[in-house]
């Protein structure tokens, strides 16, 4: 969900872009990272851990940890908290599987 009114900050948004996440189309702004665009659309789970398939979301959101790695345009392990969203990007959950 996006903040509609803020007492101090005037949020300047970039151009609206469309992208897909696991086959479903969503909208974001071209000056925001992939993980942020997903979060604004209510998507918090970005990947599943390798061994135990536990859900993973963002943690640091500035490119330090590896919690937000996803498949972007077919390339795995993209750091989605810093990589900007682009028109037509194909975003996929990484390591998808049942929680064991």
């Amino acid at each position, binding site marked *: 969900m996006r903040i509609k009114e803020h007492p101090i900050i005037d949020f300047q*948004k970039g151009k609206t872009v469309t992208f897909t996440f696991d086959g479903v189309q969503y909208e974001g702004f071209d000056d925001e990272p992939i993980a942020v665009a997903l979060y604004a659309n209510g998507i918090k789970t970005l990947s599943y851990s390798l061994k135990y398939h536990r859900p993973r979301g963002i943690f640091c959101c500035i490119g330090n940890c590896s919690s937000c790695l996803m498949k972007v345009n077919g390339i795995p392990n993209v750091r989605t908290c810093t990589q900007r969203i682009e028109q037509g990007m194909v975003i996929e959950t990484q390591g998808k599987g049942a929680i064991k």
Partner: protein
Amino acid sequence: MRIDCDVLIIGGGPAGLCAARSLLGTGLKVLILERDPFLGGQLLKQTHMFFGSKEQYAGTRGFEIGQILTREVQASPNITVMLETVASGYYPEENFILALEKEKKLYQVYFKKVIVATGASEKSLLFEGNDLPGIYGAGAVQTLMNMYGVMPGKDIIMIGSGNIGLIVSYQLLQAGVKVKAILEAAPTVGGYFVHAAKVSRMGIPIFTQTTVKRALGRNALEGVEIVSLDSKWQYVPGTERKWPCDTLCLAVGLSPMSELLWQFQCEMRYVSELGGYVAKRNPFMQTTHPDVYIAGDVSGVEEASSAMLEGTIAGFAVSKALHKMLDSVDQVIQNSQTFLDEMHVGTIGEKIRNGLAKVEVDVCL
């Protein structure tokens, strides 16, 4: 491709920008490497007004300070900025920093002096389920809401009552998010009284000697089980209670991102008061490697005001070491050192003072 500069600054946050600004008009060729697509670092998510004196931008909001510094640096002919560029390693045999621009182009960056201002990364906390989506560092929460205008959650519990925990709680209220409580494991509130008083007035309860024991939820956070702690920081049996929430914000400190300093073989020391491993340095922010200077959180986790002062000192010290200083250099360095010392006085500065005492050394300038 090869790049040559006099002064390489790694990190374009408050410390790096102030270091660069100190080199304005010296004629030295300065290069800033910044991994983000913008300068300003963590200043850009600070909506609160800063304290201190006029020189330290007291009364100006953090993101505005970031904009001011960015404009100054971008307008100066002797400073080049490379954005979306990561300093990925130091190669001692040839004495260059390898820089990767936009994940595509590699550069060998040669320099006379380097100022490492790489900042810090957020710490996590050990408890069951601490990896669930919905549990974020305080910086992540600030990034979402203050930089991109996205609500981090609806119902938040904050862990940690240091200045970051208190300020971010207030910022959450400004963004329209409900902060249910701030939990603090210690017996007393960690941050400044003025911040604690502000969030208390806004109706956020602070529970001391209380922490999170377990995160609840399977696919995402649905709540937390919290517990009281005794004077030995142990769980008090029978005090567990479950509180629903969709977001847990961890404001439990940061650790310096000192990887490059290890590569430079600076003498390092673990100082818990400063957040982790930091390089030993002299009062001019010079490490035991004569060409390597440090500034900001990488030299010990504090706050943006001290980062700016350290950056200023490091920048002027480098200009002096390269014999390209302005006439006022000694006076400016001394003033900044005095401001920095003033930030560390009293009981509030005690922890930092103790930490700094462990890493301050005499190194020849």
